[in-house]
């Protein structure tokens, strides 16, 4: 199979692409020196809602927590425990979560399964940004929470909460599938506390 007459060069030379990428990484590093605070301010407050709103909320929250479609974000080892929980033995699909969307537009949940390095950070951030609201993040594993065993490395982001707000932390290295499932159910509880009147704000 031969290729003739085809321009096999890149529209931009590879070097320029890499330089642009490096600038982006540096800029992101600069911006993410502090962890993003956990989106939890409203968690403990008790909402005063009337009955109609409550039942509407109940339906909506039920729907949203029953069909959390995770986006694909599988950087490292934890991914295989995530896949294991997708697999037959633990079967995330019981929760309606088997539809792994590769496109962030259609996903609701980001399970950060693995170590995040700075080179990857802009991509993960972009994917998070591209997810349609409402969206949630589960920081899975020590790497997701703090950078884990690699935290002292020069190249590892110390925790996903530097670049995206994290809703649930699931410790473990890697967390067992059950631990992840427990984390997901914790997230379900969090979603159940949402209210339609404040959907527009990040909660």
């Amino acid at each position, binding site marked *: 199979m031969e290729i003739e007459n085809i321009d096999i060069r890149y529209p931009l030379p590879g070097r320029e692409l890499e330089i642009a990428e490096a600038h982006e990484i540096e800029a992101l590093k600069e911006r993410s020196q502090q962890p993003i605070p956990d989106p939890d301010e409203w968690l403990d407050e008790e909402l005063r809602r009337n009955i109609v709103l409550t039942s509407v909320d109940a*339906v*909506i929250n*039920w*729907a*949203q927590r*029953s*069909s959390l479609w995770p986006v694909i974000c599988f950087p490292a080892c934890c991914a295989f425990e995530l896949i294991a929980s997708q*697999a*037959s*033995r633990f*079967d995330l*699909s*019981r*929760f*309606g979560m*088997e539809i792994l*969307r*590769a*496109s962030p*537009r*259609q996903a*609701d949940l980001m399970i950060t399964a693995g170590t995040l390095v700075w080179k990857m950070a802009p991509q993960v951030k972009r994917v998070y940004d*591209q997810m*349609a*609201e*409402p969206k949630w993040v589960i920081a899975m594993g020590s790497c997701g929470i703090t950078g884990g065993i690699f935290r002292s490395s020069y190249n590892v982001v110390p925790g996903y909460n530097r670049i995206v707000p994290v809703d649930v932390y699931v410790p473990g290295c890697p967390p067992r599938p059950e631990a992840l499932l427990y984390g997901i159910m914790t997230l379900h509880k969090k979603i159940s506390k949402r209210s339609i009147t404040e*959907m527009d704000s990040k909660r």
Partner: protein
Amino acid sequence: MVLNPGLGMEYHWQALPPDWPGNFWWHWLAFSVIILAFVLGLVMGFIWLERRGIGRFQIRLGPNRTGPFGLLQPIADAVKVLLKENIVPAAADKIVHWLAPLVAFVPTLMIFAVVPFQDGALLADLNVGVLYIVAISSISTVGIFMAGWSSSNKYSLLAAMRDVATVVSYEIPVVLSLAGVVLLAGSLSLNQIVMAQDIPFILLQPLAFLLFFIAASAEINRTPFDLLEADSELVAGFHIEYSGMKFALFYLTEYAEALAVSAIIATLFLGGWRGPVLPPWLWFVGKVVAVFSVMFWIRSTLPRVRIDQLMALAWKFLLPLALINLVVTAVQVLAWPEASLWAMVPVNVAIMAALVVTWSRLLKLGGGRVEV
């Protein structure tokens, strides 16, 4: 109110009892809405069925926590998707982007206007029924193409191109394999084709059935021909940039198309609503579900073909066989018009087996790459 007084039209419908309440048009409007609801309900059911079914094929359970047996899962998905943010990429061709789901979904729904759900229970018994189905379904590929093109994403563009390739290759086998059925029934009207099936046409036209099944699954992009949304290659394919309800419409379209193909197969090859004991509509639904189950059984088993293999299959296998089938059927119809239908069954099955085997031997389709 009469549609065209000058032309002396008469209509015959047995669909509903004549004391159906209300004005004539309201009646048909209600019937349309009922069909729409029925179709949507079936589609929802299919989504549930497929997720559960594939789960069982994969020795797991599938959605079972949302409502009894997970039956409410599609509804939960629908509500959730409705409340998702709607993203339109800045670079997209916005008008086309918005129109695409509409163009893809509506024609698919329109197919059900001519499908008889039970004796006479169809919206319009068209004289050109089969041709109508074939024609109208070609519109929805335009919708998919629009989606792929307008998203201004290279992946979706690739998917759009694959869409064109599929249509170009599989339209002809679909149409030609249906022609065999038309030959036997001597009519294009779906209701009359059902009436003509004293024995299901799958027995009389096994080759046509096989070809149509393959070609139709390719045309609606079911696995193993799901190149448009091949998630291991093209991430999400043509709907990669779609979110919220627009995406849901594509998702629905996919299953509605599967439902449509199942319904067409049930009607044209399996004897439609005919069957003993049970009420006709139940027979119909049962057959449709059976065909669909075969579809997701295949989906849960087979890997995906590549685009050039996809086209080679259509052009070098399906198309010639469909033509041969057409000619053979025509000769049969003319030569033995009186022959008992049952006598033709083994003959036709034998012809099918012989043709398929020789042809695939001829092209060495079995081993290795499809080097034809």
